C-alpha cells in the first residue's frame, strides 16, 4: 500500500498536473474562490435567464408601475424586487441583463485578446521597423482616454450594443499587444527557442507553438481584468445612451432610464448598480487570485 502511494507521490513530484497545481495555488486565495462562485452563479443566470426569470423582461404591468420591493409597504411577492416606471418586473430584467453583460465580456475579451495576441506576436518577431510602426500605432490608441475613444467610435458607428462591443474591443486591444510583445521579447532570448530554431522550426511554429504557450500567464490575468473593464465600459456607454438601446434590459441602460426617478424610487437605481458592482467585483477577485496563482515570482515567496 505504501509502495503505491509512494509511486503516486513520485509521479506527482516528477510532473505535477498544471491544472491541479494551478488549483492548489488558486485555492489559497479565499477571495478568489468566493469570486469564482459568484461568477459561476452569474454565468448560470446568463445561460438560463428565460427559465429563471418570473416574467418576460419587456412585459409591462401598467397597473403596478413603480411598485417597491416586497419588504417595503406597498410591495408584494408578485414582484420581489419591485417594478420600474413602466411596470416591468425588476428581477426579470436584472436576470436578463446578466445575459447582455456576460455576452459583452466574452465577445470583447475574445476579439481584443485574439487580435492583440496576434499583433503582439508579429510585433515581437518582426524586423525593427515594423515593430516600431506597430508600437507607435498602439501608443496612438492608448493616448486617448478609453471611454472617450469608445464614445466617439460608437457615435461614428451608431449607438448599439454591437458597436459598443466593437469599440471597447478596439480600445482594450493595445494592452494585449504590449503584454504579448514584452513576453515574446524576453522569451525569444532563451535557449529553448534557439534550440527549436536550430532543429529547423519554421517562423510560424516558433511563434505559435514554441513561444506563445510560455507567454500566456500574464495574458490570462489580463483577460480576466479586461472582462470586468468591458462590462463596466459597456454599462457606462449604455448609461450615456450610446450602448444598448431601451427597452433592452442592459444594466447600464436600465440605470439611464431610471435616472429621473432616483429621488422617488430608490430600487430602480439601486439594483442594476449592485448587479454591475457585484459582477465586476467577483471578476476582479478572481483576477487577483489568477495573478497570484500564475505568477511564479509570488509563488516562491
Amino acid at each position, binding site marked *: 500500500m505504501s509502495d503505491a502511494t509512494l509511486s503516486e507521490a513520485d509521479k506527482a513530484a516528477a510532473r505535477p498536473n498544471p491544472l491541479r497545481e494551478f488549483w492548489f495555488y488558486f485555492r489559497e486565495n479565499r*477571495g478568489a474562490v468566493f469570486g469564482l462562485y459568484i461568477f459561476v452563479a452569474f454565468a448560470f443566470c446568463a445561460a438560463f435567464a428565460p427559465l429563471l426569470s418570473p416574467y418576460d423582461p419587456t412585459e409591462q404591468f401598467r397597473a403596478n408601475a413603480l411598485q417597491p420591493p416586497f419588504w417595503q409597504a406597498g410591495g408584494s411577492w408578485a414582484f420581489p424586487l419591485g417594478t420600474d416606471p413602466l411596470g416591468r418586473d425588476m428581477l426579470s430584467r436584472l436576470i436578463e441583463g446578466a445575459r447582455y453583460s456576460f455576452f459583452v465580456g466574452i465577445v470583447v475579451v475574445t476579439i481584443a485578446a485574439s487580435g492583440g495576441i496576434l499583433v503582439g506576436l508579429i510585433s515581437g518577431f518582426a524586423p525593427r521597423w515594423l515593430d516600431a510602426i506597430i508600437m*507607435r*500605432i498602439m*501608443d*496612438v490608441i*492608448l*493616448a*486617448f*482616454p*478609453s*471611454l*472617450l*475613444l469608445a*464614445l*466617439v*467610435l460608437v*457615435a*461614428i458607428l*451608431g449607438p448599439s450594443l454591437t458597436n459598443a462591443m466593437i469599440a471597447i474591443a478596439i480600445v482594450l486591444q493595445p494592452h494585449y499587444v504590449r503584454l504579448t510583445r514584452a513576453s515574446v521579447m524576453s522569451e525569444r532570448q532563451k535557449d529553448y527557442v534557439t534550440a527549436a530554431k536550430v532543429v529547423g522550426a519554421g517562423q510560424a511554429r516558433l511563434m505559435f507553438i514554441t513561444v506563445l504557450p510560455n507567454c500566456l500567464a500574464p495574458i490570462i490575468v489580463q483577460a480576466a481584468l479586461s472582462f*470586468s473593464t468591458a462590462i*463596466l465600459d459597456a*454599462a*457606462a456607454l449604455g*448609461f*450615456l*445612451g*450610446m450602448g444598448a438601446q431601451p427597452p433592452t434590459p442592459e444594466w*447600464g441602460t436600465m*440605470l439611464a432610464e431610471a*435616472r429621473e426617478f*432616483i*429621488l422617488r424610487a*430608490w430600487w430602480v*437605481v*439601486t439594483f*442594476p*448598480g449592485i448587479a*454591475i*458592482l457585484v459582477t*465586476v*467585483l467577483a471578476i*476582479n*477577485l478572481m483576477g*487577483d487570485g489568477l495573478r497570484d496563482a500564475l505568477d511564479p515570482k509570488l509563488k516562491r515567496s
Partner: protein
Amino acid sequence: MLKYFASRLLTFIPTFIGVTLISFGFIRVLPGDPIIVMAGERGISAERYAELSAQFGFDRPILVQFWEYFLGVLQGDLGQSFVTKRPVWDEFFALFPATLELSICAMIFAVALGLPAGVIAAVNRGKFFDRALMSTALIGYSMPIFWWALLLIIVFSGNLQWTPVSGRIDLLYYFPDATGFMLIDSLVSGQSGAFKSAVRHLILPTIVLGTIPLAVIARQTRSAMLEVLSEDYIRTARAKGMSPGRINGIHALRNALIPVITVIGLSVGTLLAGAILTETIFSWPGIGKWMVDSIFRRDYPVVQGGLLLIAVMVMVVNLTVDMLYGVINPKIRKR
C-alpha cells in the same frame, strides 16, 4: 541623459501625427454630412451646399484637407464649433479650468486617503485592518462610478439635503471669473456664502471622480510598501532600534513613493474618462460634459478638436512622467 530625453521626444512626434490623423479621420467617416446637419430641418439648396462645401474645404482631396488641418493644428487653429461659431480652442480653454479644478480636488482626495490607507494596510499585513482596507479598495476599484454618483445623490442630496445636485455654484452669486477656478474666484469675490456654496457643489463630484484613483493608490502603496519593508536596510534600521513610526513613515515610505507617483501621473487618462461621466451626471460645465454634448449635437469640429487636445494632454503628461522617472531612476535611462 540627454540621449534618453531625445529618444523619448522622438517617439512623441509620430504619435502626435497619428493622434491628429485619427481625430481628423474620425470626422470624415462619421455618418451624416456635416453641412446637412448644420442646415438642420430647413434643408439646403444645391448652390448653397456647394458654396459651404467650398468654404469648409470639403470639396478638395482628402490629403490636402488633412495637410491644411495639420498646419492649422500646429498654429493652434482647430476650427469653429458648428453650434456656437466660436473657435474650438477658445471653448476648450474656457471650460478647462472647471475640469482641472475638479480633477485636482479628486486627486488630493485620493492621495490624502489612499496613501495612509496603503501604508497602514502594509504595516498590518494579514491582520483584520489590512483585509478590511483592501476589501474596501477592491470594491472602490470595481465601482461603476456613474451608479456611485446616483447613490450619493440619493443619500446626500435627496434624503439629507446637504449638497446640491448640479452645477458649480448657486445662481445667486455672480462674479467675474478671474482664474476660472471657482474656489479661488468665490473667495476673492468676497461675497458671503459664495465660497461655501462652491465647496458644497464640489464635494460629491470630487468623491465620485476620486474613488477609483483612491482605490488604485491604496493598492499600489500597499504593494510598494510591502516590497520595501522586506529590504535589508529596513532590517538594519530595525536592528539599530529605530522607532517603527520613523522606519515606516520615513525610510520605507520614501522609497515606496516612486511607483506610487508613477501611478498618480499615469492616471490622468483615467481621470479624464471619469470626468466624462462625473461631469455629465453633475452638470459640471467642464470639457467632459462639453465632449459628450458635442457628440450628441454632432458638432464635428468640437469633437475633433476636443479629442485631439485631450489626447495631446495625456501624451504630454505621460512624457513628463517618463522623463521624471528617468531622472529619479538611472536604470531606466540605459535602455
